[in-house]
């Protein structure tokens, strides 16, 4: 599979797909998309890269062990859930900043939650695939 065409394609695909995944993640609240799909697209991007260059190269690009993304994501989701407690609202109530930010849109605890989901999905998928690829 390590053909030149595939490698060259994956060079462009990786940043494009990653960008697309973040785009999906951020627009999820208003248009089709969201943390799940975004995470899946991002992990596909890394998978394509690993097919082209091999696992070690991909691990180098990601830098962190994808397994660590799972607890980080869960923690983010949990923080988003607990945050409303501090202003006296029930668990997982959405909190919103009053002014929307440029490019990103309205920032809220819900977005943090979705980012958590996004990270968990990436972590899960990559952990599964990497541990299999390593043992094959």
């Amino acid at each position, binding site marked *: 599979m390590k053909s030149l065409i595939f490698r060259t394609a994956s060079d462009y695909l990786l940043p494009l797909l990653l960008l697309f995944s973040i785009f999906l993640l951020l627009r999820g609240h*208003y*248009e*089709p998309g969201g943390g*799940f799909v975004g995470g899946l697209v991002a992990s596909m991007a890394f998978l394509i890269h690993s097919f082209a260059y091999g696992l070690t190269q991909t691990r180098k690009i990601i830098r962190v062990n994808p397994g660590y993304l799972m607890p980080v994501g869960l923690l983010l989701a949990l923080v988003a859930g607990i945050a409303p407690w501090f202003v006296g609202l029930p668990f997982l109530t959405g909190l919103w900043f009053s002014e929307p930010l440029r490019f990103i849109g309205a920032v809220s605890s819900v977005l943090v939650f979705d980012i958590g989901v996004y990270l968990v*999905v990436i972590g899960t998928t990559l952990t*599964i695939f990497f541990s*299999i690829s390593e043992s094959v």
Partner: protein
Amino acid sequence: MELLLVFLIGLMHAGGVYMLLRRSMFKMIIGLILLGNGANLLIFLLGRLVKGHPPVMADGMKVFTDIYADPLPQAVILTAIVIGFGLQSFAIILIKKVYKVLETDDLDELNSSEEEI
């Protein structure tokens, strides 16, 4: 259209069950996935089919002005798909591992594995 989907749902369930009754573990996973797809389609169908009106509001609107597809089954199915992926990957790895250790894919040969290991 609904009738065609009903037919497909029936077919998926039948195929899934048939595969689950096989002795090969690989076939059982195929059956599992077929059943999962069938169930998703079933829930989707029961939410009623609506063409071209996703449950997404037009820009700048605060409520729906037109008809829209039922969002609830969609949320349920989305969850089911993702969870199903976790289940499938675990099952796939499991039979891979079983095959590696016991060098068989046949369920009936697993029955005697306790003495061997």
